[in-house]
């Protein structure tokens, strides 16, 4: 199966006379055109309406994906990393037009996929394949795996059942199963085996792009790396680009050439995997990496964001979406506090705002009224802050809390410590060799990137 000859394995059966067809998707054996990437996603927006009532009046929108841009070149593995709710899966499904985007543009091989239909759409459906996350529901339990892997062939018009069978058995052997397995049902296989079969099914139409949504997250340990290795080997052998969705840093580190880090529907940072993971620039990337426990047991420190509450994607924070949690939040221009103190104050502000009140100062945490000292101690606030305006704001807020008036405390803090991060939306900054959506990387904003680690 090592056919690494000069003849690239893409559709060599396509004869030159086929190239005269105008079918744009059909002639990929034609001159290799490197002028455009395989997949270009530009400003993608996928919003889901929140409706209410019998008439389904729209009362809001979940901005699952909100202005995402990236591109994948031929044969490249691009990873989208993020936590649940970041919009990475919706991005992937939108790229396959399985979710209808509400805005932006997606081009596959230079052509917008939004307007594809007929033969072009069928060609796109052949050339871009999907591997889903949970191997236990990736297969119709009523079909044998032979039928499942052959399904794409049949769906795309290959009527010759013997040929389908031959292709499927060949492919199953190549992913490490045996030809006898075709007549067995999915439940007879382990999770790792099912995921190999899923890869075989994604491969059977000889695609140019595989979208893999957390393909190994249901597997652990060595089975996970085996499946990953298989996918890696096959994509290199057949020069297939992969859009790889994962929440697992270890997995993307091993598999992806480039990654994009997503938070609340946006890509906050993207670049070559090594660079992003070795020297993360965006504060969210840093928080994410810093939350992964080290394999060195003597290093047990974990990074803490300002608050733990992940904002509601139907009502994302203004300005930078990470500002309610960002440990590197930019202080007001005229405020000059040391970093730790500023973090403490910022945490104070956004903890109040997120209503994450710690036990000691809860409104009815007992009969004794909260006193000022308790509030200060709980939030680690010193009694004196070397900036007059901030000091007054914090004093007022603390007083308001003692009175039990949280609303006033919140307003007072918002007013005393405004931040550019809340006011204006960052664009992909230029202070870094790769796009980082943070004001600290924007030369026009008076804030320097902080060092890492």
């Amino acid at each position, binding site marked *: 199966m090592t056919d690494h000859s000069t003849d690239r394995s893409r559709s060599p059966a396509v004869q030159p006379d086929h190239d005269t067809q105008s079918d744009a998707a059909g002639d990929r054996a034609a001159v290799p055109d490197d002028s455009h990437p395989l997949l270009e996603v530009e400003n993608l927006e996928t919003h889901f309406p929140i409706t209410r009532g019998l008439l389904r009046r729209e009362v809001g929108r979940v901005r699952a994906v909100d202005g995402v841009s990236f591109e994948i070149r031929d044969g490249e593995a691009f990873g989208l990393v993020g936590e649940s709710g970041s919009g990475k899966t919706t991005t992937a499904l939108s790229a396959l037009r399985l979710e209808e985007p509400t805005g932006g543009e997606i081009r596959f091989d230079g052509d917008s996929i939004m307007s594809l239909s007929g033969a072009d759409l069928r060609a796109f459906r052949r050339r871009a394949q999907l591997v889903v996350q949970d191997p236990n529901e990736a297969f119709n339990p009523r079909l044998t795996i032979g039928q499942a892997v052959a399904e794409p062939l049949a769906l795309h018009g290959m009527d010759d059942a013997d040929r389908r069978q031959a292709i499927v058995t060949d492919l199953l052997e190549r992913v490490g199963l045996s030809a006898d397995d075709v007549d067995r049902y999915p439940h007879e296989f382990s999770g790792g085996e099912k995921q190999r079969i899923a890869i075989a099914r994604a491969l059977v139409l000889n695609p140019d792009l595989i979208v893999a949504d957390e393909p190994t997250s249901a597997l652990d340990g060595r089975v996970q790396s085996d499946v990953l290795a298989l996918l890696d080997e096959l994509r290199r052998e057949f020069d297939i680009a992969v859009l790889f969705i994962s929440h697992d840093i270890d997995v993307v580190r091993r598999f992806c050439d480039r990654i994009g880090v997503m938070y609340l529907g946006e890509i906050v940072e993207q670049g070559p995997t090594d660079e992003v993971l070795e020297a993360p620039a965006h504060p969210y990337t840093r928080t994410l990496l810093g939350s992964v426990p080290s394999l060195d*047991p003597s290093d047990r420190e974990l990074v803490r964001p300002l608050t733990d509450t992940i904002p509601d994607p139907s009502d994302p924070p203004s300005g930078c979406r990470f500002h309610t949690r960002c440990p590197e939040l930019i202080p007001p221009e005229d405020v000059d506090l040391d970093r730790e103190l500023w973090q403490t104050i910022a945490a104070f502000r956004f903890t109040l705002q997120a209503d994450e009140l710690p036990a000691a100062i809860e409104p009815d945490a007992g009969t004794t009224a909260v006193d000022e000292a308790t509030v200060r101690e709980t939030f680690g606030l010193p009694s004196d802050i070397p900036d007059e305006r901030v000091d007054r704001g914090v004093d007022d807020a603390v007083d308001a809390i003692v009175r039990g008036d949280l609303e006033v405390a919140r307003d007072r803090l918002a007013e005393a410590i405004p931040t550019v991060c809340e006011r204006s939306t960052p664009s992909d900054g230029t202070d870094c060799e790769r796009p980082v959506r943070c004001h600290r990387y924007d030369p026009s904003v008076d804030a320097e990137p902080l060092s890492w680690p």
Partner: protein
Amino acid sequence: MSTQPHTTTPQDRSDDEEPLLSVDDLRTRIRTERETIHAVDGVSFTVNRGETVCLVGESGSGKSVTCESLTGIVPQPPAEIIGGTVEFKGRNLLEASESTLRSIRGTEIAHVFQNPQSALDPVYTVGDQLVEAITIHEEISESDARERASELLRQVGIPNAPTRIDDYPHEFSGGMQQRVAIAIALAADPALLIADEPTTAVDVTVQARLIELLRELTDGGMSVLLITHDLRVAAALADRVLVMFGGTIVERGPIEALYSQPAHPYTRSLFDSYDGLSRRGDRSARGDIPTDGCRFRDECPHAIDACAGGDQPPFYTVDDRKTHGASCLYYGPEHDPAPILHDDAAVNTLIEEPTDD
């Protein structure tokens, strides 16, 4: 590299104190229609007071069945505990009556599972469930129980506990649900918390907070038996580690020793899977795990004839550290472990990874 000729099994514990839990030669098998699986096949370990012991292994290694066997919550049938002793505070749990076990489960040994939904009843508020957990084991008034319930919610770090106590489980995020599940487990102030993959279903930033919470609990003197497949989670929490494969413990030791020099070929392959892509030649990896001798021998690159048959290899000390032991013949008197230890360098480079702090 010298190895101690094996005389005794390396001691897991400091000898000055009786361990809280000591498990000896535990065996549990699971009968299905087609076959009998030796899910736990002679497992021995101890947990001391205030200590976090971590059982590491892949799915199917028997780590969950081990822990479910301790308090008899493993479903019987199909499972059947066929041998061994589980001594908890001097009582043998395997011989205890069902009612004794029931009172021990909740009050002295509490369980937390991977999926918090399974521990929370969706039709009751978390307050109701906490109050129930408290009053089952304690005769106290409803209002005192509620007071204690919100205290527990605070303890596990749920903001606004007094208001959230009347919320239903679905109104909490996954991480918060797990905190509630932990709060319920803590209701009776247990001496031992058995946590089965408690952070696997949540995101890393949430996992980081749960790890901090579990650390606080052990600082407060509770013992934790943590089950995980994730070496990183174990590194963040464990004092001692037990590595399981095929129903047996294959390596054991203090976390620093074991992580700085994983000894058993299986442990080393686990560490490998965190770095680089798999180098396992056998892709299909189907086939049954042997049920005698070294269970790992079919996949072990160093296997020799002596690895087959009989009991699992005894625990030999690794590198003269008497607390670090590996159940592999290469660490025995007749062999030299050098080929295993020099097999690859990946293991050690991992520890200095710059992105991990």
